[in-house]
């Protein structure tokens, strides 16, 4: 809870206010030195609601009171405050709304960011018997030998002959893709849907640059 001075106006006579404030300053000069202030206009009687907000603020400032915000309920007051870029607080009596700082900061709503998993890049040949697993994307810049296994939760790119096994979307990501410069794989799988060399060989893209994706439950093998 912030301890802040509230000036509740009961009348809209600025000259009278000037005198009243001057008297108060005389009695306690240290108090009125750059003191933050909430200007409360909601207690003004209806026939005295009209006032020049800018002048009122200047007056307060003259006496060492810096207006932080306005407490008002009338639309004219609220509009005036908006024109002056002054925040408006709800009238007293409204149950205090506990505003935590983080809420303020998060005011512009940002959509939840997808968890970014780093791409792993391998530039040496992956030999038979070796198994490579990565959570993000996997990029291999050298040949993958028969008997080698590449597993990735994301996409798999092999910029060289792929002669081993490639399993993309290992955790179930059906939008994972496999790319290779020469399709000679023992087995390809995306999110568990697989094809072995026996079937892959029948594709016209066998031995060439290929792009494999999943459509429905079927592996789509396209020329790259």
């Amino acid at each position, binding site marked *: 809870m912030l301890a802040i001075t509230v000036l509740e106006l009961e009348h809209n006579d600025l000259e009278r206010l000037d005198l009243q404030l001057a008297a108060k300053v005389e009695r306690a000069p240290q108090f009125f030195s750059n003191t933050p202030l909430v200007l409360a206009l909601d207690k003004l009687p209806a026939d005295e609601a009209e006032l020049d907000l800018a002048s009122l603020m200047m007056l307060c400032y003259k006496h060492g009171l810096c207006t932080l915000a306005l407490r008002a309920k009338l639309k004219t007051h609220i509009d005036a405050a908006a024109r002056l870029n002054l925040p408006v607080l709800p009238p007293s009596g409204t149950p205090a709304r506990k505003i935590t700082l983080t809420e303020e900061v998060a005011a512009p709503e940002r959509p939840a960011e997808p968890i970014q998993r780093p791409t792993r890049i391998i530039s*040496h*040949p*992956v*030999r*038979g*018997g*070796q198994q490579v697993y990565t959570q993000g994307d996997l990029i291999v810049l*050298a*040949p993958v*030998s*028969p*008997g*080698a296994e590449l597993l990735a939760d994301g996409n798999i790119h092999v910029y060289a002959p792929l*002669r081993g096994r490639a399993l993309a979307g290992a955790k179930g990501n059906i939008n994972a893709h496999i790319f290779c410069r020469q399709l000679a794989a023992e087995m390809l799988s995306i999110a568990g849907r697989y094809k072995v060399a026996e079937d892959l060989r029948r594709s016209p893209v066998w031995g060439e640059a290929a792009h494999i994706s999943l459509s429905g439950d079927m592996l789509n093998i396209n020329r790259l």
Partner: protein
Amino acid sequence: MAKIIVVTSGKGGVGKTTTSASIGTGLALRGYKTVIIDFDVGLRNLDLIMGCERRVVYDFVNVIQGDATLAQTLIKDKRLENLYVLAASQTRDKDALTTEGVERVISELAETFDFVICDSPAGIEKGAHLAMYFADEAIVVTNPEVSSVRDSDRMLGLLASKSRRAELGLEPIKEHLLLTRYSPDRVIKGEMLGVEDVEEILSIRLLGVVPESKSVLKASNQGVPVILDEESDAGQAYSDAVDRLLGKDVEHRFLDVKRQGLLQRIFGGRE
């Protein structure tokens, strides 16, 4: 400090011991003090190929277990003064080898020798693993045949990941490909994998191509490393390979089909 070279393959019977014997002999011929260690505990044959089987008193396991010193165990070659052999045990098995013991022996040898050649057994188990663990360079012996290429590929993976250099993050083992039992006319016929095919599949530098030759069997039975048979094509190929290992740029012979003239065919016959 010696250079430690492992001769390995994964597959059995491709020519590791033949290669170890010839490469070791070739280095000794060129003036380097060389020792060849047989890591095939229980199935030793390096001593047979080198022709020193009748002089084996102590073996590798004896040295590891402290029953004998290296000086007592090393067998000096009768033909070359720079060449020594450390024979394997015939009565024990691979479990008798320990990493610490092997490290101790190799370190001691590395102090006085220029080259330590480790003749690996076949497979990827303990014996093969210990043979390649301390290596600086590796000669991967491969036949131009699918299962040999597949096994060599596996062995290359292990060299890159399970050697001491890999575990300590040092510069990786320098890998060389030695293609043995190569027959150019079968390659042309399409029956055999060619050099380019093997190089493409394995992606390592070619050290040499040793042609299929009757002289290899003859040399084994006589206990003479085939490199000492200067007239044989296999012997010459090994000699070229040793030169390349030492950094010389030697053109590959024995890659093309030998064209025999009419007279040669009548009188010479196939070598």
